[in-house]
């Protein structure tokens, strides 16, 4: 109750939450409102928006309904963004916790691997991974997570390094708790808040990376994506700019919404921490 109240105190957080709510509603409503195949031909090609109210946002080069594509694209963006971020946070938190808690050689090896991943630009990594394994939704998620887990891993490790010196960790050892249980039950949950604070950045980056991959034609070909829509529109940019602008603006708003809502969550938990 209180936390929600604090979250909605800033206008930025409210705006972010509204955008995200709209996006989620779009994603959920897509199969209901546009039950057919969004990639099917719905009308004449290159129909501009607001001319035909059965196709409010017009059609693309092949006569597909842009609004239906937008709704189904929201589904892909959100699914890929959330799944990739969740995977990155999970991998990062586990590796960071193991490295920080075990110390010594384990820490050394895990952190050098982290370094190696961090030195390769994450987009190149995703590009290479998808081109080798082949584009499908699962592969795209894995490819994005592959480049995004290093940040959470470093934050988790730093947090774990300070937590493992606390008395309650010593206390857990004294009662004979297994080191893995100490690491994942006592230490990790308390190391999570700063790691989770990264999640909005990671979700936003994942959505952008997915769009970029699709734009380059490396997205799942069986799904509509905003990046793919922009790529489609690019060829007719001069005659029908709306085909690129509509998904582009959606992308910007989504990333903005994720950032703002994420900031709101961080702010509200920060207030709570400083009070306690």
């Amino acid at each position, binding site marked *: 109750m209180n936390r929600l109240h604090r979250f909605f105190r800033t206008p930025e957080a409210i705006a972010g939450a509204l955008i995200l709510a709209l996006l989620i509603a779009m994603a959920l409503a897509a199969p209901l409102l546009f039950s057919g195949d969004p990639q099917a031909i719905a009308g004449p090609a290159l129909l501009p928006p607001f001319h035909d109210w059965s196709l409010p946002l017009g059609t693309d080069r092949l006569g597909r309904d842009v609004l239906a594509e937008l709704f189904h694209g929201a589904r892909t963006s959100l699914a890929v963004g959330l799944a990739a971020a969740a995977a990155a946070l999970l991998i990062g938190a586990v590796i960071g916790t193991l490295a920080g808690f075990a110390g010594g050689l384990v820490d050394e090896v895990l952190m050098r691997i982290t370094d190696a991943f961090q030195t390769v630009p994450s987009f190149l990594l995703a590009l290479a991974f998808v081109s080798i394994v082949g584009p499908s939704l699962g592969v795209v998620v894995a490819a994005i997570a592959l480049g995004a887990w290093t940040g959470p891993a470093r934050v988790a490790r730093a947090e774990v390094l300070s937590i493992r010196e*606390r*008395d*309650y960790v*010593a*206390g*857990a*050892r*004294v*009662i*004979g*708790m*297994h080191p893995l249980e100490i690491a994942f039950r*006592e230490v990790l*949950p*308390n190391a999570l808040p700063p790691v989770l604070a990264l999640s909005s950045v990671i979700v936003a980056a994942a959505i952008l990376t997915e769009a970029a991959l699709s734009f380059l034609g490396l997205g799942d070909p069986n799904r509509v994506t905003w990046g793919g829509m922009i790529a489609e529109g690019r060829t007719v940019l001069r005659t029908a700019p709306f085909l690129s602008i509509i998904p582009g603006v959606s992308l910007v708003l989504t990333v903005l919404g994720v950032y703002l809502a994420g900031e709101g969550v961080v702010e509200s938990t920060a207030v709570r921490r400083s009070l306690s």
Partner: protein
Amino acid sequence: MSLLAVSNLAKRYHRGSKPFAAVDDLSFEINPAETLALAGPSGSGKSTIARLVLRLIEPDAGRIDFEGGDFLALSGAALRARRARLQMVFQDPLAAFNPRATVARVLDDPLRIHNIASRAERPRRIAALLERVGLDASLATRAIHEISGGQRQRVAIARAIATKPSLIVLDEAVSALDVSVRGQILELLLDLQRQERIAYLFISHDLGVISAVAHRVVILDAGRIAESGDARAVIANPQSAIGKALVDAAPRLNRNRP
């Protein structure tokens, strides 16, 4: 035979580039149901000794025999199983528990880890432990941060006795408590000692508390034993320089002063 025998224990740390001995060639013994106090100024090695005895840190040299076995030779599962017999209570009861924990979870852990009670039986055991340390069983559902400092230290003691230990290390366990609570906690510790024959390694900077509860005292200075002996005799008539300084520095309540 002694319950715990520490011989020639040594631990060095590095301060900058030069090493210094936190604990230097230290030997002492504790008998069953006995309270041995460790006293000394800060930096004398009291807390290092506590952590060495509990194997929270490893010594550079020396030997620790506990319940007739080489305690330093244990590792992995054997060490974890042995820990049931050797427990600890920390100075700050808030820092000693996972900030997310409830009282029930804190007490459930040792019972589960050492297979002391089945899952179905544990709530009853937790209630009994709480009652044993003078707390109401209904406290079990509360979060650790919701209860008072004195209650928390009682929960810490309940956790320490859950596995029926023969020795509990009390590291400044009453120093952070208000005086009115301190007396009750000391009474509880002594009652447990009498009933369960638990020995205490009682680490404290407060000679008043030590003379009230300890049988013997070891006075430390820079990681070495300055003097040791019967607690009240040593405190009444200290021989070492550090012992004299500690006694002189202790605040006195001169209730019949001129």
